[in-house]
């Protein structure tokens, strides 16, 4: 399905709910954007039903959130730093719930007595753009200037 360029903005916010099939596929494809998957591989990796997988892949592709090669492999886009960042935050969210599963405080233990916290973003922060966050390799980044810790332990 073609995308209406008058309504399409590649810098739109990532508006995908964690826990959805869309989020699971984005999470998989944006862990390493140099890797491409067949729909069957995605289905197996995520344990999704076949029809659900193909429908969700089509929607993500139509929305311009993932790429598809001419031979039918799906992949994340290397230039979509926002989606890669989203995938990383999904991993952290899962880690939060795995490591600290029982907070002891549920929504029933909290009473709303005033305004909620949700706030409109200041206009000067809405048009932010990000440069790719590729970091140098460790050897290009820093070098040892003294003895290493193994040598120190042996002394």
């Amino acid at each position, binding site marked *: 399905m073609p995308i209406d360029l008058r309504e399409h903005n590649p810098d739109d*916010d*990532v*508006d*995908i*709910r*964690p*826990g959805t099939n869309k*989020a699971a596929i984005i999470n998989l494809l944006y862990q390493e954007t140099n890797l491409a998957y067949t729909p069957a591989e995605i289905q197996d990796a995520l344990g999704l039903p076949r029809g659900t997988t193909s429908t969700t892949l089509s929607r993500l592709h139509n929305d311009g959130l993932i790429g598809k090669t001419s031979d039918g492999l799906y992949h994340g886009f290397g230039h979509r730093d*926002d989606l890669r*960042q*989203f995938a*990383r*935050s*999904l991993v*952290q*969210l*899962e*880690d*939060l*719930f795995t*490591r*600290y*599963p*029982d*907070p*002891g*405080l*549920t*929504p029933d*233990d*909290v*009473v*709303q*007595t*005033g*305004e*909620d*916290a*949700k*706030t*409109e*973003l*200041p206009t000067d*922060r*809405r048009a*932010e753009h*990000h440069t790719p966050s590729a970091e140098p390799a460790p050897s290009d980044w820093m070098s040892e200037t003294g003895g290493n810790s193994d040598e120190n332990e042996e002394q």
Partner: protein
Amino acid sequence: MTYYYPQGSLVFAADPTGAHSNPRPVIVISTTDRPYVKQEATVVCLTTQSEYSYEVTELPSHVLDGLELRKTSYVMPWAIYTIPLSAICDNLPSGTLTPDGLELVANVIDEMVRP
């Protein structure tokens, strides 16, 4: 509307896997100056448990605006995460810390990281 949760917001985050039915209360510690402010937030976790090997600090009720906690809650400064904004439940209670509350949380984290 493009929205966010300001620094000091006390909100509930939902488990993306559905494995845990209870959402988790967290405090947003990032400001609008953080990158990707439209899609994620940095948060510190709250707990009702006080028996950890690392000392936890109570979040007193008088440092909260807009909501009231029925259980004594503590800040876990070692449990800091970046989570998607869309994981924050906007249909559950939320509120904000007062300036004193923000100062308390900042001090708790500062105590952990300062040499």
